[in-house]
């Protein structure tokens, strides 16, 4: 399981965290990816970096399914705090509560954090 807690662009963790997920998929690992706290902003629709000349990596999230990464979880509370709903996200995800996330974390072999 990879837990993403940071916003994109302000720091590189979102991008380099995504690279780990893709590599895990290449190794045919059954990967769950969780977006939590500011990490939920990684999936925000409409990212456009033309005026800041940073690489826009958000299209890659849409490609995750084709790499076999299908377990994307977003914590409801983090979304609500930030005024976001599922319609704001670039890919379909499973919305889970913090309580459900707690249980999900207990079932993992390895947890990586960014």
């Amino acid at each position, binding site marked *: 399981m990879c837990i993403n807690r*940071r916003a994109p*662009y302000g720091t590189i963790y979102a991008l380099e965290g995504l690279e780990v997920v893709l590599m895990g998929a290449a190794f045919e690992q059954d990967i769950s990816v969780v977006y939590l706290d500011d990490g939920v902003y990684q999936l925000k629709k409409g990212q456009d970096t033309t005026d800041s000349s940073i690489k826009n990596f958000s299209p890659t999230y849409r490609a995750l399914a084709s790499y076999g990464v299908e377990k994307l979880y977003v914590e409801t509370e983090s979304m609500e705090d930030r005024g976001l709903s599922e319609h704001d996200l670039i890919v379909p995800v499973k919305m889970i509560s913090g309580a459900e996330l707690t249980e999900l974390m207990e079932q993992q072999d390895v947890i990586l954090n960014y």
Partner: protein
Amino acid sequence: MLHTVNKSPYEKGSLDTCLRLAKQGSTILLIEDAVYAAITGSSLESKIRQASKQYEFCVLGPDLKARGLDEAKLIDSIRVVDYGGFVDLAVSHDRVQSWL
């Protein structure tokens, strides 16, 4: 004085410290991950609306756009500037304080 804040208000306390210490009438420019503070519908909206009675808030447009934040959803008192506008703000205020 021009104050800049570049950290997400959900992750770090920099914006709170800025709001505690910036003199009334100062300008606060939100850049990088701090632009998330400028959006309506969040749990921070009322805090920012309250603070905007005392401060002039600006937000860096390219950073909003990179993060997929719609200008139509900005808290209405917040003005969008580009990098040139950022420079103009630095020129028109006698000092810049960066809250990292």
